[in-house]
């Protein structure tokens, strides 16, 4: 079996090097590891026509949802052909946290990110008609309560860590209630089933008329939410965000990686794309392959520490 896999890899490798000269010549599959309609999907859908224009072939978006992305990423590392014709959307901190937690057949280091194009910072939101108007109101409301319910998407996720961190530094009794995505978390808040959401900036922007954002977990305020203060402004050191990027299967020839990297960089520079993304609440970032590697290397120990902390705190 191992031999067969090796042979297969070899042929694939030979084929891919031969083809690298004129890459790409056929449609590229862009795999989204989450359900259609989510942030990752929308991002890819915005990029799709521009990528097609730059690369000259069609980009096919398919979905391999499941396990909070783990299904898709396991396939990326273990089964996908490294010829550049299948690329996978990746998310931080997910690809760091899942291997730390265990049970997934991939390691963070095995994922070859070639670009991180945007982030979504965590934001704390309440319903627009809530008596809580400001961050101070929230702290007043929460202090001394036995349990304040904070909804968010996923566990472990950027949302859950931001909540834990906030609970710790502010000494509040916050209970994090994970939802399967922002699609189910928002109605839970609107229906009063949780007291607030620790969610992403995209939600803050897209539900502007229904939700009030009272704090954002960034270093500085963001341009599309100029009135929203950061946690740091109140003396709470909570900075947490999710990155979105794209990766290729391990073993993809570097010439092909360069071509894809350049294509994504160009798409990211396109003012139309930037405008569309910012309008939806994404913060544009540019990390090429090298910078992406550094970023991941820097974040691994950080999340390990946070993870150990949550384990110590217990349930």
């Amino acid at each position, binding site marked *: 079996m191992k031999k067969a896999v090796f042979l297969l890899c070899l042929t694939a490798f030979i084929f891919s090097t031969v083809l690298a000269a004129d890459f790409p010549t056929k449609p590229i599959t862009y795999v989204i590891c989450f359900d259609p309609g989510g942030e990752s999907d929308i991002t890819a859908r915005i990029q799709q*026509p521009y990528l097609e224009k730059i690369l000259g072939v069609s980009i096919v978006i398919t979905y*391999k949802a499941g*396990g909070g992305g783990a299904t898709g990423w396991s396939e990326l590392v273990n089964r996908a052909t490294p010829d550049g014709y299948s690329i996978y959307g990746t998310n931080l901190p997910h690809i760091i946290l899942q291997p730390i937690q265990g049970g997934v057949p991939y390691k963070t280091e095995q994922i070859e990110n070639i670009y991180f194009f945007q982030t979504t910072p965590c934001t704390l939101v309440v319903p627009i008609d809530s008596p809580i108007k400001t961050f101070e109101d929230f702290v007043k409301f929460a202090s001394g309560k036995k349990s304040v319910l904070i909804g968010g998407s996923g566990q472990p996720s950027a949302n859950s860590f931001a909540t834990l961190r906030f609970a710790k530094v502010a000494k509040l009794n916050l209970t994090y209630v994970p939802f399967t995505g922002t699609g189910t978390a*928002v109605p839970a808040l609107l229906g009063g089933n949780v007291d607030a959401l620790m969610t992403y900036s995209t939600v803050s922007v897209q539900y502007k008329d229904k939700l009030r954002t009272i704090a954002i977990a960034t270093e500085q305020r963001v341009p599309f939410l100029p009135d929203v203060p950061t946690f740091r402004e109140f003396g709470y050191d909570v900075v947490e965000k999710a990155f979105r990027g794209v990766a290729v299967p391990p073993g993809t020839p570097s010439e092909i990686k360069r071509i894809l990297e350049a294509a994504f960089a160009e798409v990211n520079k396109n003012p139309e794309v930037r405008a569309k993304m910012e309008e939806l609440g994404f913060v544009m970032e540019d990390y090429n392959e090298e910078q992406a590697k550094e970023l991941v290397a820097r974040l691994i120990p950080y999340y390990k520490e946070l993870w150990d902390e949550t384990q110590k705190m217990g349930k």
Partner: protein
Amino acid sequence: MASFHYLLNAIPQILTAKILLLMVGGVGIGLVIGALPGMSATMGVALFLPLTYWMTPSESLVFLGSLYMAAIYGGSFSAILLRTPGTPSNIGTIFDGYPMAKQGKGWKAILIATYSSLYGGLFGMICFLIFAPMLARIALKFGPPEYFWLGIFGLTVISSLSRGNTLKGFIGGFIGMMISFVGVAPIGGNVRFTFGSSHLISGFGLIPALVGLFCIPEVINMVVQRGQKQLFVEAKIERRTALNTFVEVMRKQIDLIRASIIGFIIGVLPGAGGNIANLVAYSEAMRASKNPEKFGTGVMEGVIATEASNNATVGGGFVPLMTLGVPGTPVDAILYGALLIQGLRPGAELFTTRADVVYTFIVGVIAATLIMVPIGLLFGRGMTKIVYKIPIHVLVPVILLLTMIGSYCVQNNISDVYTMLILGVLGYVLRRFGFEAGPITLGLILGPIAETGFTQGLLMGRRLDYPWTIFFIRPISWVLIALSVVFLLWPLIRKQGPSVAGGKQ
């Protein structure tokens, strides 16, 4: 009624050649995708989404909406003729549609499905127009504890669904739930019960499971009947069957309305869709019937219930999507994405800022529901002829191919095809021992809903002295608990319960 004025304005909008063409195209594609075993409405809409980038927002929505509506309807064809739900929303159609086909009344079953789908589809869309803002608020009150009880309530359907042995029905339901546990836990996030297989991290897909559990046993039956020339003999088609059946179906107003209301309400709830609605509507039809023991032998009311309810969920699902910007079903989530990409933000303000888009969409989908009937009948007639005329040995490999394509295309993953085949064999064995596929799939669908609601509810309950009491202190929960208890005890309340009817099909 300001909306009425917008509606009138929208009618000429859809009468352009391009929009009409898109509607016909959407309906045609939807029918084919729906009728293919395993190709669900979600997949159809996702596959054809890229085509809409070059359309205006209203064109794109009308096209995708038509496709969606037609796919839910088209799924009834394979349910009736092949005993395989074309989409998860057509599971219940098998119970009476397939026996009808076996008796040679396949064409009549398709006619019934068509008219019921038309009725349910229109009912849902009209309710959406009238009740949308009001219902959206109520739907929000549905929190985790309510979803837990909704799951339990759904499971009680088993007591009327399982013919023969209720005990076995519930065991089947629990087995379905156990299958749904495999993979990453929805709330806790742990990887569980994968037995070391990386294929199983995402769990067993619903579609491969459905195709396997329903279709493969049928293929095996065909193999057993290989001596026969055709699968079943078609009864003589009387003249004017189409018209007479229409009159017959429309006489069942109470059945139609009951099923449509159930479908619409379940559609409004975020997270629940046609897959639950059709089964609930079926068991409700059975409970209301004077002859519940006849269900499962090919009665008209069974097909009416499932097909009217599943198309009514379409309009129901648009309620949270268009008023709150909260997509309730996977298809609605894709539509949500399609709107965002077009630069529109779904939500109540869309009704005022872009009323033209919203009302063109509504009128367009209503028109597509009407267009669906002639196209569907043409398509259904052809498919009936093919299934009735083709010899078994030719049909078996084609159906096998369809099951493979259907389960493969969900995620373009070959391991889903193996899953489908394995579950199919398992389903066949269990069926021989009296464990029907219906309850198992119900468990598979409801397991995640009940579990998510349950664990989230426990977290919410932390603010109480006893977390568990969260499930018993909320008014909507009381209603669901009461309904569950009534359903569960129904066979006892009504002595000539469904346990009389044999499980043979």
